[in-house]
């Protein structure tokens, strides 16, 4: 099943098939978790800490209980011993346990937004009213609001741990110290990226139902990693895994953040069992801003060593990630990626980079699309352009000289320790995506504008290259059922987060079964009852892992169909031909698939994999900077990505462009700002700015396929994140190019008008 074979006979795979999902979404027939209602349902509202760091003296819920329509109020005292903690799903290292988050604060609060109590009431409005009747007394402690003060360890979030540093990862390759000693050129710089996050349009929500008679729990509104979350929840609630059904409905965007195990993923199911009533909770946008995983707040002090001709010899230095108040679920991934993938698609023979994970009194972090990669690509691409400029080498030529070559694959990147994670770039010709990007962009002409002031605005261009990791293992499952009417039903262990899985899986299955797309009955995903074991959607893994599992299930289903047909047609199973929805014997007798499946025929398949795919590409941007206001206009942006094999170019391009515009939000607009007391200063979408339809009107995305991945039978590479990864670095380099005559070098994101204006004002040389 893991044999690498070219996926032959593709009729639907590779075609821009219009999405099956759209038919319900466009008519208002999608069903998201807040659309659900149950008889006898209670509504939950959660009291959250308004203090960033403090000791809880008392929480008095007596008055809240008396509010008309309130059913009950739950505090940490009701949750029993030991107080359950939010689990670590990825990199579950023992060192992180001491920094884990209790599902509700009991002794201390460590960030604004931490849960203190849950009110259950007849309506959401009454539940929210009752929150105001809870009296909370918290003794404030000094708040740690940035990684620098965390590093001083003067105030500790966890006194017993003796430090605010949860972990230091180190990425190593070759001998960086020796390379620096002999290098003709070195440059050291400090960069930073700001705290921002995924912000899907659908707020989080859950509906939990407890069936006391059967001891069964159903949790609707699950997403991303249903089976893993069921495993955690079962343990916390003292239930068998099969006593819990996690059900995903339509999901209004994930981007890495939705579907991770949050405190509410315990609190709401617990409340349903506690009250013995269905309980629904839907967060409001302010809650979302202070409770959903934050991301991206990182800094680095990094040094590059080059030969005179621009050949990169080594990278070394230190990175620092602001983790927020707790280590939870996948919080370590971004930090790990900053260190391990700073080299990106480039040949960097010697690497020594450590990254410290520092706790602060802010919302805990988790992955956001391209975790760590957006940050580290900004650091690297900026450093590359600064080095190239100083060495008087064309920035494109500098990159070409250092891109990993096709013949060097598989190319080992730095190894990370502890956790000893090795990785290698799988396949591809990185020069070709750069060629395509520059050609589509019109680089030869546009680059001449670099640094020129036209009609009062400075023009600048930049281009950069990226890689995108995908296809995390260890496994994915798929089940196919040939129904008695001859149609096919697909059950997947993957999860939908709005990316169009149903269409892509239908395309793969139709080709694998050599049947019309219209005969795919339904594509069902997002329930722990559909397949025996599922792993979900993260790390751009669904198409590669789920799609490959589908191929395995299709092969097994065909085998079962042949065996069934052989009995009907009196021939050997291996003699049966399956074509045109008929099974035929060598003597010409045949039976239709519908007749064959008098009883539905089912087969379950799986795909096991421990290697990663590496989609790759290049971005180029043309900006114009108004020196009077600091406003940066994006005049053109081209993004190119090669994903080995395209399943659906329409949805692939949708991922590329959508991710890119998110990345532009991170480059220009989005910022979760805290004050010195740990108060989050953005409380609405009027403060937290994401891109709108008029912000970036010229975006051109191009998707390519070649050099199929050797590690899966589809040859596909995960490609949901590439658009976002390069955006920060390319934009900052374009602004630097525009303002080169002023000597402006952006070192921090976001490039808000205020920041750019200040950079110009502080510029060392004015023309």
């Amino acid at each position, binding site marked *: 099943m893991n044999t690498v074979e070219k996926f032959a006979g593709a009729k639907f795979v590779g075609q821009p098939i*219009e*999405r099956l*999902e*759209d*038919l*319900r*979404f*466009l*008519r*208002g*027939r*999608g*069903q*998201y978790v*807040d*659309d659900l*209602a149950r008889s006898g349902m209670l509504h939950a509202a959660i009291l959250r800490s308004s203090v960033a760091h403090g000791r809880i003296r008392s929480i008095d819920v007596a008055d809240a209980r008396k509010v008309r329509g309130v059913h009950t109020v739950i505090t940490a005292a009701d949750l029993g011993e030991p107080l359950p903690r939010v689990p670590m799903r990825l990199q579950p290292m023992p060192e992180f346990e001491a920094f884990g988050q209790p599902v509700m604060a009991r002794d201390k609060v460590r960030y604004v937004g931490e849960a203190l109590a849950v009110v259950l009431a007849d309506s959401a*409005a009454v539940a929210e009213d009752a929150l105001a009747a809870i009296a909370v007394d918290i003794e404030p402690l000094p708040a740690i609001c940035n990684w620098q003060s965390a590093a001083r360890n003067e105030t500790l979030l966890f006194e017993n741990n003796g430090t605010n540093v949860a972990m230091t990862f180190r990425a190593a390759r070759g001998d960086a110290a020796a390379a620096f000693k002999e290098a003709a050129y070195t440059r050291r710089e400090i960069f930073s990226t700001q705290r921002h996050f*995924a*912000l*899907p*349009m*659908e*707020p989080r929500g859950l509906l939990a139902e407890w069936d006391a008679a059967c001891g069964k729990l159903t949790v609707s509104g699950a997403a991303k990693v249903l089976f893993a979350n069921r495993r955690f929840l079962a343990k916390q609630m003292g239930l068998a895994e099969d006593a819990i059904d996690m059900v995903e409905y*339509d*999901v*209004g*965007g994930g*981007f890495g953040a939705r579907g991770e195990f949050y405190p509410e993923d315990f609190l709401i199911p617990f409340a349903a069992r506690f009250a013995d009533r269905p309980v629904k909770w839907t967060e*409001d*946008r302010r809650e979302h801003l202070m409770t959903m995983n934050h991301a991206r707040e990182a800094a680095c002090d990094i040094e590059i060593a080059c030969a005179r001709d621009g050949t990169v010899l080594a990278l070394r230095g230190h990175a620092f990630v602001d983790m927020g108040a707790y280590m939870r679920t996948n919080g370590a991934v971004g930090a790990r990626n900053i260190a391990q993938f700073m080299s990106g698609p480039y040949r960097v023979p010697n690497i020594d980079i450590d990254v410290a994970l520092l706790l602060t009194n802010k919302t805990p972090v988790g992955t956001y699309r391209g975790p760590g990669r957006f940050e580290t690509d900004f650091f690297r691409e900026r450093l590359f352009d600064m080095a190239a400029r100083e060495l008087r080498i064309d920035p494109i030529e500098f990159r070409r000289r250092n891109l990993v070559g096709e013949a060097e694959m598989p190319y080992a990147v730095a190894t990370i320790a502890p956790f000893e994670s090795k990785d290698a770039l799988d396949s591809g010709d990185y020069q070709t995506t750069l060629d395509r990007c520059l050609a589509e962009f019109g680089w030869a002409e546009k680059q001449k504008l670099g640094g020129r002031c036209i009609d009062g605005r400075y023009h600048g261009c930049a281009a950069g290259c990226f890689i995108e990791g995908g296809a995390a293992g260890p496994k994915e499952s798929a089940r196919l059922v040939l129904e008695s009417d001859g149609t096919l039903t697909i059950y997947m262990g993957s999860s939908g*987060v*709005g*990316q*169009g899985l149903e269409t892509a899986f239908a395309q793969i299955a139709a080709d694998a079964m050599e049947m019309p797309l219209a005969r795919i009955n339904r594509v069902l995903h997002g329930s722990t009852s559909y397949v025996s074991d599922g792993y979900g959607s993260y790390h751009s893994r669904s198409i590669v892992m789920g799609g490959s599992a589908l191929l395995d299930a299709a092969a097994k289903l065909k085998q079962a169909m042949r065996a069934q047909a052989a009995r009907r047609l009196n021939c050997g199973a291996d003699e049966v031909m399956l074509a045109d929805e008929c099974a035929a014997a060598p003597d010409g007798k045949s039976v239709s698939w519908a007749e064959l499946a008098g009883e539905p025929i089912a087969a379950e398949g799986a795909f096991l994999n421990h290697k990663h795919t590496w989609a790759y590409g290049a971005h180029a941007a043309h900006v114009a900077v108004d020196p009077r206001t600091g406003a940066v206009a994006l005049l053109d942006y081209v993004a190119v990505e090669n994903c080995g094999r395209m399943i659906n170019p*329409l*949805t692939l*391009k*949708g991922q590329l*462009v*959508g*991710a*890119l*515009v*998110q990345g532009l939000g991170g480059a220009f607009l989005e910022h979760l700002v805290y004050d010195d007391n740990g108060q989050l200063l953005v409380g*609405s*979408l*009027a403060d937290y700015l*994401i*891109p*709108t*339809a*008029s*912000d*970036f*009107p010229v*975006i051109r995305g191009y998707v390519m396929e070649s050099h199929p991945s050797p590690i899966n039978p589809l040859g596909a590479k995960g490609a949901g994140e590439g658009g976002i990864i390069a955006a920060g670095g390319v934009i900052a380099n374009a602004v630097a190019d525009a303002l080169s005559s002023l000597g402006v070098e952006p070192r921090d994101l976001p490039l808000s008008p205020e920041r750019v204006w200040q950079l110009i004002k502080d510029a060392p040389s004015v023309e």
Partner: protein
Amino acid sequence: MSIKFEVNGKPVSVEVEPRLTLADCLRHHLRLTGTHVGCEHGVCGSCTVLVDGAAVRSCLLLAVQAEGAKVVTVEGLSRDEGLTPLQASFRKHHALQCGFCTPGMITTAHALLSEEPDCDADRVREVLSGNLCRCTGYISIVEAVLDARAAYKGGGNGA
């Protein structure tokens, strides 16, 4: 309070608290869950419905303010079978991914094209800039709306 208004061509009568928003009334009292609530403060546009022909944010309107009005939701802009030209254009251009902002985009675009079937790309961007989408990057949405203009020209109502 008891209120009466028209939703998608049908008269409705609902008993509501004065503080109930029109969005919550549509979603939870009338079970028209195609209208989505993304921010509850009038910024994201997911809850956009048509009130007497104008695109409005149903999270910023109280249900009682709809007394006597003609309200149209995304369900009312849809056919039982198949897609309208505007919806088909969204599908063709892959102008939606997760689908959460989509009903607000459809209602907003319908109101725009009904009033200004000759609008240009800048006008489409300007009007849609009040509706947030986190998935698509908007390029495909603008293309879809421009491509659907033909169905609204010459007095056409997009049907």
